[in-house]
């Protein structure tokens, strides 16, 4: 069984595409679409890497990231933030809250794979 990645994203076709390319690369992919219950999902089994969208129903990715960094179980888990907003202040906010990496949509599959592999090795 490969390393586990949890993709927290509400766009079903992004979930399907990213899940496919990560699974093909050997990752065990779990997905979750709701911001409000995202922390519970993480705590059910802390993954090796979290890919976290910023704009989620129920709760923003920034708030989720803040809680992840405050929890002992997830304070060191690599988190890659996904956002449709590419402004510098969004990146600064994500990094300031403890994001390991920040990726702006639309991204390419190669970028996602490269980043995930790099984070897994970090």
């Amino acid at each position, binding site marked *: 069984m490969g390393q586990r990645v949890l993709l927290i994203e509400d766009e079903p076709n992004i979930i399907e595409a*990213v899940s*496919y390319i990560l699974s093909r690369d050997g990752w065990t992919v779990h997905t979750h679409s709701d911001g409000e219950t995202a922390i519970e999902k993480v705590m059910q089994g802390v993954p090796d890497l979290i890919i976290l969208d910023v704009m989620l129903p129920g709760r923003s990715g920034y708030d989720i990231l803040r809680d992840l960094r405050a929890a002992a179980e997830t304070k060191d888990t690599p988190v890659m933030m996904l956002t449709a907003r590419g402004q510098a202040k969004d990146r600064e906010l994500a990094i300031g809250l403890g994001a390991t990496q920040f990726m702006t949509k639309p991204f390419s*599959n190669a970028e996602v794979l490269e980043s995930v592999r790099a984070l897994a090795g970090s």
Partner: protein
Amino acid sequence: MADRILTGTRVRNRRLDLGLRQSAVAERVGISGSYLNLIEHNRRRIGGKLLGGLARVLEIDQAQLEDETSASVITPLKVAAVEFPSLAVGAESAEEFASRFPGWAGVINSQQAHIERLTAKVDALANRLAHDTKIATSLHEVISTATAIRSTASILVETPDLDSEWQGRFHTNIDTDSARLAESSQALLGLLDIETGGDPSDVSTVVEQAEALFAARGFHFPECENGDEPDWPDGVDGVAGEIASGWARDYIADAARLPLAQFSPAAEQMAFDPARLAARFDVPVELILRRLAQLPASAAVPPMGLVRCDSAGVITFQKPILDFRLPRAGSACPLWPLFQALSQPGHALRSVARMSGAARTTFECFSIAAPVGPVAFGVPPRIEATMLVRPAQSDEAPNPVGPGCRICTVEGCTSRRQPSVVQPKG
């Protein structure tokens, strides 16, 4: 005090600019030539009535002669100079410039103030782009959909041995996402298609605010039906309130000519047919169109939108329905019957129209252009076009209309004003 231009110097410069003799000016203000000489060399303080007299004789605003204005005149000049360093005018010469050409200094300062106001407005718009939740949500939708398409398409291209089940799923995903992208990008452009004016911190226009007042009441006002103007909520912008009140007065006048008690049952009985209703009540068609759009919502009444425009094609009133809304800024598709009516006043037009793109409503459109207000000999009439739209009730083939040239993919359109940013399907 580097910014200070002494009043005496200003008086002297102005007098010399006008080519007046010192003695002549002194005589006209009732002082001796020698006293004026002392003033001009800043050896006597001056103010009040005497300064006012000199300003009148020198044909200049008194404020432009007063010391107190010097900083307010020179500082903006220096700011303007600093902002255009490539022109190398030298901020230090602002004092000399203001002293010699106070009128031109005033022009530059007015322009500088105007630039600052425009800058504030641009900032407000940029702020809206960054923080308006509707725009942010719409932008997120567009980019997320584009991301899904990009990622899915890459998989299809880069995985030649993809099994048929996955291929089918991804093809379906691209199909649904491309339709969503078309819709969401158009919605985003609609949000960005804004006019600006008034308070730069609030880029919602007064017309939009007035329209919101009507929308909040479903475009039906029982008090107007009874001849009374509505009360607007506290905090409504004064100009927006005036516009809405103007529309309400038109509503009251229409209701007086066609009372709801008679019109509503007749409209239902005649299947909301504007031509039959106009004949039944012997009134202009445009009045029928307006009254139909003012009917209270009920299960028996189909959704009916209304749009009015002036002879320049500028939308002056709009009741949107479903996916029907025309841009106010003059970028609407000229193929809408509303605009065709403008070229043939008095000719009632009926047609079925449908915008290109997926999930579009086919609308039945009734339109007419007619003079409004008093008609006088030798005075061009004020022409207004009115169009009522409602979902088409027949299978009649629709005429194509576009969402606006920028995002319209219709090829070979003779009414196209500018190239589309959307590539037609190859």
